[in-house]
C-alpha cells in the first residue's frame, strides 16, 4: 500500500511539467544568435524560445547552463533554463561554434 502511494506520488511529480509564462524569443540565422546577449531574471526559471531559421540543425549547448538541445533547421524549440544565480552563462551552437556564440546574463 505504501509503495502504491509512493509510486502515485512519483507519477504526479513526473506528470506535471512546469512551464514559464513568457518565453524569451531568440532567432538563429546564418549561424548567429540574435540577440546574442540574453538578460534573464536571476533565481527563477526562464524559457528561451529558439527559432532556427537556418537550413541546418543546431545544438544549443552550454555546460554553464546545463543544457543540450537540438533544434532542427527551420524549426523552433524551447530551451528551459533552471533558476540561475546572478552571473554570466556562455552558450554556443555546437555545430557552428565559430559564429554561434552567446551569453545569458542573470541579474
Amino acid at each position: 500500500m505504501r509503495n502504491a502511494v509512493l509510486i502515485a506520488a512519483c507519477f504526479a511529480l513526473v506528470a506535471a511539467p512546469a512551464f514559464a509564462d513568457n518565453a524569451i524569443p531568440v532567432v538563429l540565422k546564418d549561424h548567429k544568435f540574435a540577440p546574442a546577449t540574453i538578460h534573464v531574471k536571476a533565481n527563477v526559471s526562464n524559457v528561451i524560445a529558439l527559432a532556427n531559421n537556418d537550413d541546418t540543425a543546431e545544438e544549443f549547448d552550454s555546460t554553464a547552463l546545463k543544457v543540450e538541445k537540438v533544434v532542427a533547421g527551420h524549426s523552433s524549440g524551447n530551451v528551459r533554463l533552471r533558476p540561475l544565480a546572478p552571473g554570466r552563462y556562455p552558450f554556443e551552437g555546437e555545430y557552428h561554434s565559430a559564429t554561434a556564440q552567446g551569453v545569458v546574463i542573470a541579474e
Partner: protein
Amino acid sequence: MLASLIIVFREVIEAGLIVGIVLAATQGVLGRSLWVAIGVGAGVLGACIVALFAEQISAQFEGSGQELFNATILLLAVGMLTWHNVWMAGHGRQMAREMRSLGAEVTAGQRTLTALAVVVGVAVLREGSEVVLFLYGIAAQGGLTAASVLAGGALGLAAGAAVSAAMYYGLLTIPAHWLFSVTGWLITLLAAGMASQAVLFLQNGGYLQFLMTPVWDTSWLLPEGGEGVLGIVGRMLHTLIGYSDQPDGLQLTAYLGTIVAINVLMRVVNRGKRVPAAVPSPAE
C-alpha cells in the same frame, strides 16, 4: 576541419568508452563480439533515424519530446547495466573460474549479452545522432569546406576509436580475478552517471523541478566541457563515472541512489546463491 575533428572525436569517445567497458566486462564470453557488433549497428541505424526525425521527436509532449526521449533511453540503459551487475554478482566467480581453467571462451555470461548490446546501442544512438546531424548539415552545404570538414570528422572518428581502444586494452591488463570486480564498479558508476544525466534531461524538459540548486561548483578546477585538454578530461570523466562540475541536489540523489540500489540488489537477489570458493560447485 579542426572544429569537426573535435566534435566527432568528442562524441566518438563518449560512445567508445562505454563500448570499451562493455567489452572488458564480457572478456572471454562466447559470442560477445557479435552482440556488441549488433549493438553498434543498431545504434548507428537508430542514430540516423533519430537525426531524421529530430524535429518530430522534439515537438512531442508539448515541446519536451527530446528531453523525455533522452531520459527514457538513458534509464533503459541504467536498467540493463543493473541487470548485468546483479547477474554477475551470482555468476562472476564461476566465469572467472571457467576462464582460468579453460583459458578460453566461456559460455557463462551469455545471458546478459543482450542487455549489454542494448547499452552499446543506446550509447551509439545518443552520440551518433549528434554526429549525423552535424555532418549532414555540413555535407548539405557542399563545396571544398565540406570535404575538409568530412576529413576532420574521419580523423576525429579514428582518434576517438584509438582512445577507446587504449582504455579497453588498459582494462585487460588487470588480472582475471580482479577484472570482473573492476568492470562491475565501472558499470555501477556508469549507470549512476546515466541516472543523474536522465534527471538533468527531465529537469530541462520541465519535470522534477526541485532540489535544483548546485551542490558544488568545481568548474574552475575541472570543467565538464570545453575545448581545452582539461575540458576533454572532464568530459571523459563525465561519461565514465558521471562527473559533473555543478551537480544539483536531485542529480546527486539519483547518482548515489543508483549506486546504493545496485549494490543492495546484487546482495539481495543473490543471497545464499554464492558458492564458497573453497568448495567445488556441482555442475550447473
